[in-house]
Structure formats: C-alpha cells, structure tokens
C-alpha cells in the first residue's frame, strides 16, 4: 500500500490526540515548573550534618559570644549566646553576617610577605637617631599586642603605638551601678561597649543624651538635649557651674544652645538621682571633671585589673599614645588593621611619619582601610578565620579573657601579623595565646564560663588543658571583681587632637560635618549588609550625607544630588539626601574610611555641588 501525505497528516493528528489521553503531556507540563524552579544560575544549598560551634566575635571590642550553626564545618548562621555573662545573648547586624566575610568580593588574597619583611628590616637599619620603627596596634591589650610590645622592645628604635584611649589606664564604666547617665554623643545604644550588657543595664538608669543630631541613642534616650555642634565641653562646664554655684555661667550656657533652665534641671538630676555617670565619645577633660564632681569615680567609673600575662612578657615596650609621638619621627610603621576598635583619621597618623619616604606596611583583610596609604599590604585573616583574643570592653568591670576561635580555616597565603612582627625580633608568637591562658590559670582567680552548658565554674577547679580546650570552644574567663580598685589613680585624658576645637571657624568652611555609622568604617561588612545600607535607608550608606533642607538650599544641592564635601584635610564626593531632622549648618555624613580621613568624628566642612 502507498501512503499519501494525507495519511501522514491523519497519523500525526491521531497520535497527538491520542497522546493527550496519556499522562505524559500533563506530567511534562507540570515538570516545566520544577525545571524553572531551579535553573542553572541558582545555587543549591549544601546539605550535611548540623553542628553547633561557639566562639567570640572579633569585629569590635565588645567581643560578643557567638553560637554558629554549621553544616559540616561550614557556618551557615551566627547567633548570640543566651545567658552569657557579658554579651547576654545579643549580637549586632555586623556580627550576625560575619560568616560571609571570608567570601567578601573585595577581600585580599595574597601579598608580598617576604619582600615586605626585607624592606622593613632594611628600613629599620636606616633609622636615624630620633626616628622610630613603630607598630600601630588598633586593638591594644590583646595577646598579640603583648607580642608586638615584646618585639618592639628588642627591635632597634622600636616603638609600640596605641590609639588615644580614655584615662590611659584600664578603666571600666559600670552601667549597672548608674542611676542617671549623661552621654555626650556616646553611641550608647548603637554599638557602645558591649551591646548586650548596655541593653541589660538599660532598664535601671535614666539616659540623658546631649548631642547635636538625633542619633539612634538620642531617639531612644529618656531625654535628648539638642546642643550645638561642638558645644559638649561648654555644656559640661555649664553643668559643673550649676553643681558648683547653683547656676550656669553665662558664656557656656549660651554656647550650648540650651536654656539655663534645661541645664539646671539636668544638673540637679545628676546630683540628686545618683549614682551618676557622664560619658563622652572623645575625651573631654571637662567631662572627667564633671564625673569627679559627681563622685562617679570608684562607683560608676572603676579600675579594672589587667588580665594576667606570663612574667617573661613583662620586659616589653611601653604603650605609647599615638598622639604623644613627635611629628615626623616614624620611619617604619607597621599597622595591624586585621582587627580594629576604631578607625583613626589617616591625617593623625601621617603627621607622625618622616617626610622622606617612610615605609608603611599594613596587615589588612581588604584594600579599603590604611592599605590605600601603604607601600606593602599583607593579607590578614579575617574573623571568623582569625585566632586571636579580645580584650575586655569598656563596660566590662572585671578583666576577661576570651578567644575568637576560628570557625573556618583561613585560606593559604594569609600573613599572621604577630608572627610577622614577632619574627622581626625572632620571637616565636605561635603559642602566645596558650602561654597567656596558662598564666591566667596559674593566677587562679575568677571563673570559667562555658557556652555549651551556659554554666560558670571557678578556674581553680579546671585543669589547665581543659581550661585551654574550653577557651577554644567559646569559653570565657571572668576575673573576680576586686574591691581595691577604688584607690586607682585616674589619669586625665591628654588634651588630644587640637584642630577639632580650633576656636575661630574659617569662613570658607561654614558647616560642621558630623560623622555617623563610624562602626561601619572600622569593621568589615558582609555583602548582605546591603539590606541596611542599600535595599533600605535604615542606615546612611558610606559617603551619603543628610542635610537640613534649608542648609542644602544654601549650598545649592537637592535631594539625591551628588556633591563635594570639603574639609581642611581634603574633599570627597557625597550623595545628598534632605532631612529636616538634621540641625541647620550641619552635614550628617556616613563614615567610610575616606570620610573618616576627611572629618574624623567631626570637622568644619563645606558642601558644594559636584
């Protein structure tokens, strides 16, 4: 039989109709959905045994305890540790996303370690009489810091530098003792001290926030005193006057922008609703004077004992305040920015360098920080890879010792700063942490808190190896509070960086730039923080600025406009948004390293259209 085309059509048509009565086409139809559910681009989450690890967050001095949910060895979620004596289960947004940091796109992968070592030793040998080879440690008090000090003690012209810190000595603010807290712009509820600890104490004290901007702390304070920018000292003086002779002395009161009545009532509150505590962001002598007057010293401001160190370490270089180093005297500067309490404006550091080709080597996780100014940038491990301890936070009354135990292995090619710097002096730094732990154990004071069971045991009852093991599993040593601390002599803060308060404002810089989000400048941020900085306007993103509409109009910039922010240190591009909550004459600018170099905490500034 011969088939015509007609037969063919019949056949095809018939089979199509027939197929409709089989499950095949319907199955196919439903599967296309599943197919489009996971197309090639979309990663499949790895499965595996769920484990829990504990460690401490090294991103800021708070060193909050962290519980990591791991698939196999890979952390997939971080959380606080409920019931922890210091962090009380709290963890901030930066800490919650820290397990992303090892995969940050802008992370450093390798650097010229050997070359840098040679360059350093060469430069040290070139050091003149009044010149130094210095290590700038942006988180002093660590075991690594001791390594640096020991190394610098034996290195020729060695110098160990630390950022200016309040009262030089180890002093703690005891929020739990305070009934009234007056804060001069200290971000008390936005990352100050140990967030969990502050929140735990918050119920018990009344918070008065004196600050030009309505910061997060100000908006949640019991009372917000919207003072003029830079009027902190004046207000402190004025309050001191009231305490001294019942009324504020006129010049100060006028400078603050508050009414005498306001000042008086605050002063009375501090005096009568004690114990009081006065905090500030920088170090203002008047503030400490005020604390002395209010009798806070020894009650809400207490001395904290040092965490024990091995005797053999005591032969170490002294801690030198960066501010007190003569300008142009540092030839070699090694900066450890792998962990950082706060970002110091580069201008502050640069002044100290010798004018003719100084050598700057930095240990960094990315090129965003001081790496921009360094000859050699050595890639350092980043939390949660690092193996480091975190010194006690400013609000922890007792000495503590806790370790940021690595949750993931650092990739190859990372340089360990303490081993590098120790190497300069031929010091083995590898097991410094262990030695310190043993020293603490020998001292036999205090208790050991273990996260797993959330229980504390006296150190005496723990064997050294168990102690060390516990520390590596997120355990935390707490010193016993010592009552003898009351007799501690408090050093008044050195009258640090002066240009901030240089009296007469130059008229070409009509505005005051006040930086916010300063923590974002110091700590590395996970890409996921875009939720806060880009996908919502919850926080002002780096290099974004908010101006009062009137001020913006005066500067000739509008909502969303690109503009240039200029200070005596230079200029940077910013994106402007309007906010009638910002006081006139103020630029509220979000800190990034660039902005910090420009403005520090605050500076005279000018905004011009880009």
């Amino acid at each position: 039989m011969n088939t015509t085309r007609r037969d063919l059509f019949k056949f095809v048509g018939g089979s199509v109709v027939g197929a409709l009565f089989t499950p095949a086409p319907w199955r196919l139809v439903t599967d296309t959905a599943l197919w489009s559910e996971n197309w090639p681009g979309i990663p499949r989450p790895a499965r595996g045994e769920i484990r829990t690890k504990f460690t401490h967050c090294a991103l800021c001095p708070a060193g909050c305890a962290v519980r990591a949910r791991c698939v196999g060895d890979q952390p997939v979620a971080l959380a606080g540790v409920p019931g922890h004596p210091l962090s009380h289960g709290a963890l901030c947004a930066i800490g919650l996303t820290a397990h992303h940091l090892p995969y940050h796109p802008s992370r450093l992968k390798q650097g010229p370690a050997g070359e840098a070592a040679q360059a350093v030793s060469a430069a040290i040998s070139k050091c003149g009489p009044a010149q130094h080879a210095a290590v700038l440690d942006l988180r002093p008090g660590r075991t690594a810091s001791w390594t640096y000090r020991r190394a610098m003690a034996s290195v020729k012209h060695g110098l160990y530098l630390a950022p200016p810190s309040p009262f030089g000595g180890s002093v703690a603010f005891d929020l739990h003792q305070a009934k009234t807290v007056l804060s001069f712009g200290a971000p008390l509820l936005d990352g100050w001290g140990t967030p969990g600890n502050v929140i735990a104490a918050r119920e018990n004290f009344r918070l008065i926030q004196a600050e030009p901007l309505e910061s997060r702390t100000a908006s949640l304070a019991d009372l917000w005193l919207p003072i003029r920018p830079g009027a902190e000292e004046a207000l402190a003086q004025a309050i001191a006057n009231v305490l001294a002779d019942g009324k504020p002395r006129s010049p100060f009161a006028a400078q603050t922008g508050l009414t005498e009545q306001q000042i008086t009532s605050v002063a009375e509150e501090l005096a009568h609703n004690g114990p009081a505590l006065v905090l500030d962001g920088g170090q203002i002598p008047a503030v400490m004077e005020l604390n002395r007057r209010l009798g806070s010293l020894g009650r809400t401001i207490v001395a904290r004992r040092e965490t024990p160190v091995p005797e053999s370490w005591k032969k170490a270089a002294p801690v030198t305040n960066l501010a007190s180093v003569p300008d142009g005297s540092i030839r070699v500067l090694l900066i450890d920015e792998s962990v950082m309490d706060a970002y110091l404006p580069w201008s502050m550091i640069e002044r100290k360098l010798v004018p003719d080709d100084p050598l700057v080597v930095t240990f960094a996780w990315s090129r965003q920080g001081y790496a921009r100014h360094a000859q050699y940038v050595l890639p350092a491990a980043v939390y949660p890879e690092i193996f480091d301890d975190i010194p006690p936070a400013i609000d922890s009354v007792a000495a503590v010792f806790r370790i940021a135990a690595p949750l993931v292995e650092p990739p190859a090619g990372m340089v360990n700063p303490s081993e590098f710097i120790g190497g300069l002096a031929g010091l083995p730094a590898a097991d410094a942490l262990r030695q310190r732990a043993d020293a603490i154990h020998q001292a036999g004071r205090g208790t050991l808190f273990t996260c797993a069971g959330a229980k504390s045991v006296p150190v005496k009852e723990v064997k050294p190896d168990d102690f060390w093991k516990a520390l590596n599993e997120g355990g935390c040593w707490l010193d016993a509070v010592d009552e003898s601390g009351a007799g501690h002599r408090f050093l008044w803060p050195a009258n640090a960086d002066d240009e901030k308060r240089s009296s007469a404002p130059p008229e070409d810089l009509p505005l005051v730039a006040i930086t916010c989000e300063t923590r974002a400048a110091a700590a590395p941020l996970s890409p996921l923080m875009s939720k806060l900085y880009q996908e919502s306007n919850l926080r002002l993103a780096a290099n974004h600025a908010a101006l009062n509409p009137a001020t913006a109009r005066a500067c000739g910039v509008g909502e969303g406009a690109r503009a240039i922010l200029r200070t005596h240190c230079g200029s940077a591009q910013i994106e402007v948004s309007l906010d009638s909550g910002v006081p006139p004459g103020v630029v509220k600018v979000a800190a990034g390293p660039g902005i910090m170099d420009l403005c520090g905490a605050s500076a005279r500034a000018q905004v011009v259209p880009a």
Partner: protein
Amino acid sequence: MIARYGMTIDVDRCTGCGACMVACAVENNVPPAHQGANDRKGITWIRVFQVNNGQDYPNRRSAFVPVLCQQCGKDAPCASVCPQQAVEIDPATGIVGQMPERCLGCRYCMAACPYHARYFNWWDPAWPAGMEKTLNPDVAPRMRGVVEKCNFCHGRWHAAIERAAANGRSIQAVDYVPACVEACPTGAIQFGDLNRPESAPARAARNGNSFRLLEKIGTDPKIYYRSTKDWVHRISSAPAPGLGKERSRG
C-alpha cells in the same frame, strides 16, 4: 491544636540596629543586593522604617518600626487575588504562605498588599563566589521573576514540627521562633500563638498600648505594635498629606 501565630513588636525598645533584617536574609537565603537595586527594588522580608513625628529639628522625634508581612487573619488582600493559588494560608498555623514555585510573577499580590510586605525578584539571585556555601540548607533560594515574602521562617517551623513529631508531641508555639525574633538584641520582637492567652502577642493584643497597622481596612493583622508614645500610634492610621514632606526613612 490549631495555632494562630502572631507577633508583638515593642517600638519603644527597637534601636533600629537592623539585626532582624540581616538575620532574616541569612535564614531565608535572600541574596545580597544587585548593584542596581535600591530601597524599592531590594528584597527585605522584614524592613525597619525610621518614622518620626513629622516635626523639624529640634522637635523631631524618631522611632523605628519593623514592618514584615502582617499575616492578615481575615480576607488577606494578597491571597484572594492570586490567579493561581500561589498564596496559601495554612489553616494549622494561620501563616500566609507564598509558593514561589507556583508564582508566575504577575505581581498582582504586591499591588494588593497595603503593607508593601511582598518583594519581587527583579534579578537572578547572585552570591559572591564562595558565599553560596553559607546558604541555609532548610530553605530553597528563589529564582528571578517570582514574588516572595515573610512566612514566619517556614523552614524553622518545619524543623520544629519534625522535632515535636520525633518527641511525640504536637507542636507548641514555643517550639520555634523566627530568625528576626531570635536576632533582636533588645527583645523588642516577640513571637507566639495568639490562641494561647499567655503568649506574648496574645497579651499584647489585650494591651492598651498596642495597635496594628491599618486596622480599619479589616484585614485583622497578626502583628501587634506597642508604644507608649502617642505620636507613634498615629502610624497605625491612614497617611496624612499635611505631613506629606519627609515622614520617614528606611
């Protein structure tokens, strides 16, 4: 036992730190922003808004209001409009669920939701190289072109169910909390079963200082906000054009 999961959020305690937002993204495998994204094209299942009393410096007072899916209890605007049942309300929990694998991305539900709690995947989800290792194994990432939203951490709920089943118990509200609740450092967000009188949201529902967003449109939201400040209560009602100028950030 039928549960009606709900939340109470103490606006007076919220510091606007954003921990809930990132914890949510970590838990539910929400990718970081595409560089083209902004606050109107991003994905934030829970989003903290900074609201204020509408006055200028120095009388400006601000508060932080986390807004997530309000889990409407009565004719949820999004559920009835979805042309293909991609929105399903679980009768056992009262949770308004979104099924991305069923969604065709018509975005009708987004137009319908007065709380802007629904988010569209404008881009293919992308993580920096290696970061996909940190994805939560309990939640499947979504593809481009579908709508997603808060589901009270369905993955956690499921895990809790399995735990309960393993222990031979029926699931109780206390058996699990969403990631945002766990992450909130000040404990401003509390989670519970509205059917159990002693649960935090149930108590909040009875509390005089509590309010819900746009109660009058009759969707019976299960998120109760709490504040002692009168001006904060104003955010529960319709917008007032008088304060049409900058009323919020976030």
